Structures are given as C-alpha cells and as structure tokens.
C-alpha cells in the first residue's frame, strides 16, 4: 500500500467530513432545541451555495469574503422558516413536522429551478492553483483553508454554547424545554436562534462547497443532507461531539475504505473496484452503530 496515496485520500475524507459536520451540527442543534427534524436542511446548503455563486458573480470579490454575507442572509432565512413554517405547527405531531420539512424540500428545489434554472454553476477560487506541502503530501490551499475554517467555527461554536448566557440557555432548552421555560428562558427565542444558527452553519458549508470547486444545482442538497442525517444518527441525536466524531469518521471512511478494500483483495490477486461503494459504506457504518449502540455513539436514551 502506498502511504502517500493513503494520506492523500485521508485528507480528502477530512474535507468531506468537514462539510458533513457543519451540516450535521446545524441539524442537531435544531433537533436538540426544538425536537424537530428538518429534512430540508440540505436545501439550505443549496441556497447558500447559490447565494455564494451570485454574490461572487456580481461582485467578483474573494469568495472567502463572501462567507459572512451569505451567513447573514441564511440566518435571516432560518428565522423566517422557523417563524412561518415550524413555529405554527410545533407540538401538533411529529408527522406534521416531517411532512412540512419534506414539503419545504420541493418548494426550495422548484423555486431555485424557477429562479436560477436547473443548470449547474460553479465558481473559481483565486487560490485554486496554489498547493501546500504537508509532510509527504501536497494539498490545494483551498482544502487546507476549508479544514482550518471548519475547526475555527467548531471552536467558536463550542465556546458560544459553553461560555455564553445565550449558549447556556440553548443547552438548557435542549435538555428540558419546560424546566428552561420555568427558569425564565424564552424558549421560543431559543427556537428561532437555533434555526438561525443551524442555517448559518449550512451557509458556511454551502460557501465552502462552492469554494472547493463543487457545482450547485437545485437538486444537489439531497445527498449531503442524507449523509448529515447518517452522521447525527451515528453520533447520537442531539449530540454535538457525536456529530463531530461521526462526521469525520464517515467522511474519512467512505473515502479510505474502498482504497483499503481494493488493496486487500489485490493481495489475493483479485482486481476489483470498490470506489462506487462510497454510499454503501456510509450506511453500513450506520447499521453497525445502530445494532451495537441504538442511541448512537454519544446519544442518550429517550432521544
């Protein structure tokens, strides 16, 4: 087995894991505070990617500088979704919440197709030709930046949740909504904030997605969202550390396992491609985790 190839594939997995983590933490935050599963979370990534594309196309400024603009736009959209869609039906039954979020998927996809056509669009990062050497491997600068940005956001998010009054209030609402309300926490405001923050993280994921050279079209949100759902189930519903561990595990595993399997069967003289097994591997991990630990790695009973 070529160690250089192994490390490089590991780095690609780390990048994929970063996108999954950002999406999954947003999902988890919303679920933790509101106990709502937003199936349309992938569409927030799609809209953020479009926002990045359009701001970049019209302003031609450095795409990294566009991230704060997109974050603000998406936070506003998150608040709108919570106020107009989820708040009115909160507590009326899980089926209502599920079908509302499924409906939002189609609304967002069709609106995007109507507004921007179904064509795929991409942007070119000004740093796309620059690579940096890290040990024995060479990585494009954009990927290093994406990994670093994700970890900075995770640290800021951690500090916000642990050290600030609002963060503590969100955690309290997440742990026991009624008790938090009795203690004077405005849980409805926490709901709104959780949607805003969740959308913000999806916004960062969408912008980084575009910066990394990926393409956006109205239907691209589904696959990353499915992976993000797998991540929160593997990590444990509502668990932020679980989402981080599971996101990295999933991103790395789905990239590295086909390579390892190929190297393994090659020992026996068998030539076989396992690279199309990416998604199968992700859900195989999901099944194993659920069988061994139904609550997920960091999940607690009752979630």
């Amino acid at each position, binding site marked *: 087995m070529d160690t250089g190839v192994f490390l490089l594939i590991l780095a690609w997995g780390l990048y994929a894991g970063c996108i999954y983590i950002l999406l999954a933490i947003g999902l988890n935050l919303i679920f933790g505070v509101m106990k709502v599963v937003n199936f349309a979370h992938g569409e927030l990534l799609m809209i953020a990617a479009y926002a990045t594309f359009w701001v970049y196309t019209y302003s031609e400024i450095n795409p990294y500088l566009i991230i704060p603009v997109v974050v603000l736009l998406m936070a506003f959209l998150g608040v709108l979704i919570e106020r107009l869609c989820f708040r*009115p039906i909160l507590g009326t039954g899980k089926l209502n919440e599920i079908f509302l979020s499924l409906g939002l998927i189609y609304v967002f996809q069709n609106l995007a197709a109507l507004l921007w056509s179904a064509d795929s669009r991409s942007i070119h990062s000004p740093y796309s030709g620059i690579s940096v050497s890290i040990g024995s491997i060479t990585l494009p600068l954009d990927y290093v930046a994406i990994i670093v940005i994700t970890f900075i956001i995770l640290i800021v998010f951690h500090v916000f949740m642990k050290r600030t009054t609002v963060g503590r209030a969100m955690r309290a609402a997440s742990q026991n909504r009624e008790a938090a309300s009795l203690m004077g926490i405005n849980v409805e405001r926490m709901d709104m904030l959780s949607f805003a923050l969740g959308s913000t993280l999806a916004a960062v994921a969408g912008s980084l997605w575009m910066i990394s050279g990926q393409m956006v079209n109205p239907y691209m949100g589904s696959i990353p969202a499915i992976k993000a759902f797998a991540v929160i189930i593997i990590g444990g519903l509502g668990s932020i550390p679980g989402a981080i561990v599971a996101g990295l595990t999933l991103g790395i595993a789905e*990239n590295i396992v086909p390579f390892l399997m190929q190297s393994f069967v090659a020992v026996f003289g068998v030539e076989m491609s396992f*690279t*199309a097994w990416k998604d199968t591997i992700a859900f195989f991990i999901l099944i194993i985790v659920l069988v061994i630990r139904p609550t997920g790695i960091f999940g607690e009973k009752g979630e």
Partner: protein
Amino acid sequence: MNKKYRYGILFTVLVISVLLAGCVEKTGETPGEAAGEIKIGIVAPVTGGASTTGTDMWQAAVLAADEINAKGGVPVNGVNMKVKLIKGDTETSRESGVKAVTKLITVDKVDILIGGFSSGITKADQVVAAEHKVPFIITGASSPIMTRRTDIDTSYFFHHCPTTDDYPESTLLFVDDAVKPAIYTKSDFAADRPLRLGVIYQDSAYGEGVYDGIKKTIENNNLNMEIVSAEKFVMSQTDFRAVLTMIKAAKPDVVYPAAFLNEQTLIVAQGRRDVGLNTIYLSVECNDHPDYYTGVGEWGEYSIQESRFGPYANPAGAIRSNVLKFRDDFKSKWGAPPGMMGASTYEGVYIAAEAIKNANSVDKEKARASLAELEMPQIIEVMEGNTITFSSDYRESKFALYMQQLIMDEAAGETRPKIVWPESVKETDFVLPDWYEPGTGGA
C-alpha cells in the same frame, strides 16, 4: 395559535401554491383533444442531475416541431397534420422515467416516443414502451443493449445515436494514431511499451457499456494499450478526489472518463486542480455542450472531446449550412447554443415526421414498419453514407464521429474545441501540453 392567524397562513400557502403551479409549463392536453395532430412524447431528464442535457433535448425537439409546423405540418392521408410535442420528464431517475413514459402512453396517448437519456433510465422506460408497442426513437441513451436486449420485444425501438461501442472505437483509434506518438516522442518511450490507460466510469449501463467498449476496441483492433486502473463511481457523484488519487497512483498516460456532463466537469477540474493528475483526459460525446466548456474552465484545456455535433466546431462538408442554421435558430429561440443530444433529438422529430409521412398513417405498427425501411438524407450530423437509415439487424443508425481538442480562447474566456481527427475533417493537429506528465512503465 388563534384561528385567524392559522387561516391567514393557510391562505398564504394556498396563494403561493397556485402561483407556483402557474409557473409550471403546460405539458400536455387531454387525450383525443385534437384530431389532426401527431402526438410525440419527448422522453428527457428535464430536471434532476442530467437536467442540462434534458432541457437541451426538449428545446431542440420544440424547434424541430415548430419548423415542421411552420412548413404546413406532415401530410398524412391528404391532411396536413401538425406535430404536437408532450414532455415526459424522467427527472434523471428510473422510477420517474417509468412514470413519465407510462403517462405519455396511457394518458397523453402519444403516437411515437423520442429521446431517452441515460441507458439505465431508458432501459426501464423501454419496458413500458414495449408492452404498449409504441415506436421509440432513442436519441440519447447510448448502450447497445437498447435494441439488442432479449428480455423484451425491441422491434419498436430505433437507435439514433452512437452506441457505447462506437465512442471508444473512434476515441482509442485517435489516441493510437495521434496522442500515443506525441507522448512517446516527448517521453522517449520504446515503441513496444503499451500505452497506460486509466478508466473512471459511471456505475450504470452507460458507464459499463463504455468500459466494455474500451476493452473490445483494444482487443478487436489489437491496440498496444493496457488498462492500468478502472474505477467506478455512482451516478451524480460530486467528489472524485479519492478515486482520482487512486487512478493517479496507477500512473496512467491517458485517462478516459465515462461520465455525464456535470460529472465529467468535476472529474477534469478536480483531477487537474486538486489531485495534480496532469494528463490527457478523454471525454464521451454527450459532454460536448456549452455548459461543459464554461464549467470546466481552464482545467479542460488540451483535453479531448469526441463528438458528432458540437456547439462550436463544425466539420467541413455538405451539411455545414444546415448545422449553422440549426445553431443560429436554436440560439435565437432559446438564448444559448444547442448541445449534441439536442441535435439528435432534433433529427429524431424529423425522422418521426418522415416515417409517419411515408407510412401515411399514425398507426403505431405502420410507423414502426416505416421506420425500419427509412432512408432519408442526413440532416445536421454527419452520417455514414450521408444517409439516415436503421440497420436491419439492430435498428441502429451509423454516425461519422470526430475528435476535438479544447484550446483556450482568450476572447471567450474559456476553451473552445478544434477538430483534430480524422484527417478528412481536421482543423489543426493534436498538441501535447508542456505540463503533461506521462505514466511510467519503462522507456
């Protein structure tokens, strides 16, 4: 929540739904509504992962129908019948494809089907078409099994696009003829060293078909080539970095992706920009589309695009004026140049009209018999023998394919193709770029 507020939300949702519904294009009318019309179902992925191609197919078909109708329609039994197109959106999925084709046949009562993109999806659509014995001119699905499969009656299917056996044959003969000598001269390789070929193919009937075609071409033509890596990916995949890293590790001289437009764009861009796989990328013809040149940007420079109809390059010959007119008309109607699948679907509508005219009936059996005997002049794509006709064994028309190399056009800000093969139609010679890195394997 008070009732007033709730009703307010309900009313708002209803208004938005009605407005959105109003934005949806009308796709058909009730069966039997209009006698004197030839109803043609256009089967295409207008939404979903292959929506760019599907939209191109639909728009080209509309242009053909408009042209035919503007000339008075199709004479059948002394009556000039208008062509009416009905959209069957496969949404780039098998399930939706079957649903769309079932609706076209049972609800819209179409006389003939045209289109079909993605062999995997079209293979599922065919089952419905075969069951109802509806003639189907397949203009986008390239697997040869379309008219060769034995599990259903294929006698109603007519294949008007090159098959996955045809692409690799032209492409690899070109590689052997022009690319290999350039690489071997630059790298000082021994003439008997096999050319190292990396293949990355979609895990579908289309991708498998191209891969099989590559192996058959090497064997049948006794080409001195070796497949050093063959990796699969799932349809609509967006992250190819890991798989390209594995291909790079196999040290290929040339990489042949069997991918759709969005996939091919990302494979070339991620291969060159992220993985540093600085090689000659080949491309299957379905990617010869304006969106590909825009999407792949400078990373596509010097890559090879096999083609039979492109948005930019024109092979010299008798149909050049037809090609230019089609391109201009399409652009003025839709605001963007047409793609290849659009070209064959455009021809598909003319083929259907000609077959129905010759049959003097819209009866499906008569239309099928007429298609089987069809002989008409080539329209906008160069055909073998300059004639559109379907082979007696598998009902396939035969195209004359050519190869293009993408060269940066500073004025356009993106690459443009130049025809480099075969000799009879080429505009310029193949160029091996300075940044090219050959595989290893002995000088």
